[in-house]
């Protein structure tokens, strides 16, 4: 989710989106699926763009589009916000539903999570009622393999009567097949869906449970056990809160104290340049007031901002990404929900507030993951109280080069 005008600007959520084709024979493919199945990762993999991805539901909130070119065929890809079904219950789901209903695409790629295929199948079946031009993409196959879950894709393909492709978008497995399947599906005028008994009845009442029966095979239960033990540790009664406090404390300590050293180095480096630039400009024969304005005005301010703000960001954002990708943040939300509830807010606010430490604007946009309008409003209003990277308090009083942009003004020239 980029902070672009199209994603946060006026009317970002009401207009849907206009698909821009580069060539007439480009195929428009919409990526639909449940939240947190890796649609954005597939999108990035195919288009080479960098939509923000994260391991929690509701990351993508507005449609994004990108262009891909594979074996002589252009593809316009549309990344739709995740939704669990087409009966919209929230603004993002409405965006997704409207886009699928409007039918301004050639193919829908229904992205599924291999770890919980059955839940994803509900949306797949609903999309199949809307359109026949569908490719089912079972993502996270690598993750499933790691957890010893095997999925009979051939059987599923036969049962549904539409192409089923297994992918692992993180390392790019299966992307070529996905392109081909999209191309093939776009050509089809009308698909012959298997008749009753053989597979899915178009518009019929097959339940997700029936479709998935006999397709998903759970291997060793030990892997699930290990996951559960981890969860127990991170959300346990005794360990949950101390571990969370220590972890968050460590991250902030690293960001604030750790950033001080590169901050100081950068500052020294820029300061040493000052004299040289001054001398260079003197040799060019500039009058004193121009030199001072350029060097003491523009150069020094820019240097200060960079040396103060760049190091904490360079440390905090990667750490935050690790927390995001590991799925720890939703656990924090789970741990703290009761405290937030006491404040009439929602536990998911822990997530948006953590984002706020990086950037308040991103945090406010992230508040869309909160369902209740009142709780969402609280999260939006209070987000600005979270000090973002540029507003971190200085770690030591009076010490120069501390990582705070606010103290900048007080520094003597």
């Amino acid at each position, binding site marked *: 989710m980029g902070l672009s005008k199209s994603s946060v600007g006026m009317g970002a959520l009401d207009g849907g989106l206009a698909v821009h084709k580069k060539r007439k024979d480009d195929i428009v493919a919409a990526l639909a699926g449940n939240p947190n199945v890796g649609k954005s990762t597939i999108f990035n993999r195919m288009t080479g763009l960098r939509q923000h991805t994260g391991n929690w539901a509701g990351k993508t909130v507005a449609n994004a589009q990108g262009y891909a070119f594979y074996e002589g065929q252009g593809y316009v890809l549309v990344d739709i916000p995740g939704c669990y079904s087409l009966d919209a219950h929230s603004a993002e789901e409405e965006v997704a539903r409207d886009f699928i209903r409007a039918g301004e695409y050639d193919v829908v790629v229904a992205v599924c999570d291999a770890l919980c295929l059955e839940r994803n199948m*509900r949306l797949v079946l609903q999309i199949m009622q809307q359109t026949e031009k569908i490719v089912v993409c079972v993502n996270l196959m690598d993750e499933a393999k790691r957890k010893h879950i095997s999925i009979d894709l051939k059987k599923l393909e036969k049962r549904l009567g539409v192409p089923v492709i297994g992918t692992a978008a993180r390392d790019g497995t299966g992307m070529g097949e996905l392109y081909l399947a999209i191309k093939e599906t776009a050509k089809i005028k009308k698909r012959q869906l298997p008749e009753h008994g053989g597979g899915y009845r178009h518009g019929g009442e097959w339940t997700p449970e029936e479709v998935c029966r006999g397709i998903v095979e759970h291997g060793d239960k030990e892997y*699930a056990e290990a996951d559960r033990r981890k*969860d127990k540790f991170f959300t346990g009664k005794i360990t949950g809160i101390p571990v969370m406090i220590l972890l968050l404390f460590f991250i902030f300590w690293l960001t604030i104290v750790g950033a001080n050293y590169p901050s100081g180095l950068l500052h020294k480096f820029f300061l040493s340049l000052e004299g040289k630039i001054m001398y260079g400009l003197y040799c060019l024969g500039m009058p004193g007031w121009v030199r001072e304005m350029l060097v003491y005005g523009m150069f020094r301010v820019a240097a200060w901002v960079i040396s103060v703000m760049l190091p904490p960001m360079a440390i905090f954002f990667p750490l935050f990404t690790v927390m995001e990708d590991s799925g720890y943040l939703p656990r924090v939300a789970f741990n703290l*929900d009761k405290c937030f509830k006491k404040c009439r807010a929602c536990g998911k606010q822990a997530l948006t507030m953590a984002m706020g430490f990086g950037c308040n604007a991103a945090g406010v946009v992230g508040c869309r993951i909160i369902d209740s309008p009142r709780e969402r409003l609280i999260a939006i209003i209070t987000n600005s109280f979270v000090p973002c990277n540029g507003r971190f308090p200085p770690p030591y009083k009076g010490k120069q080069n501390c990582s705070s942009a606010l103290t900048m003004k007080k520094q003597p020239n």
Partner: protein
Amino acid sequence: MEKANARAENWSGENLDSGSLTPISLNLLKPGEKGRIARISLGENTKGKLQDMGFMQGSLVECAYRSPFGDPTAYFVKGVLIAIRSEEAGKIYIEKEQEMERRQWA
């Protein structure tokens, strides 16, 4: 208090099929216990959302664990962990599975 109310509602309950098992509300389930959803008496919107996430009538639910402060509880439904606050869980009625054999979940 809420729990008591939930029980009272159950006793007066209308058309509760299955003679032997009385539906109890989901928040009475202890970690490790399982049940099948009998009905969800929540508003249309919340109910729809829950159904989308796998809380359908007849779905098998397993109580996984509670949060450190005891309120939202995580449940396994169709291989997915979902946390629900006790207010909502109190309005979901389940039939407790008697046999405690461990079913598979991912």
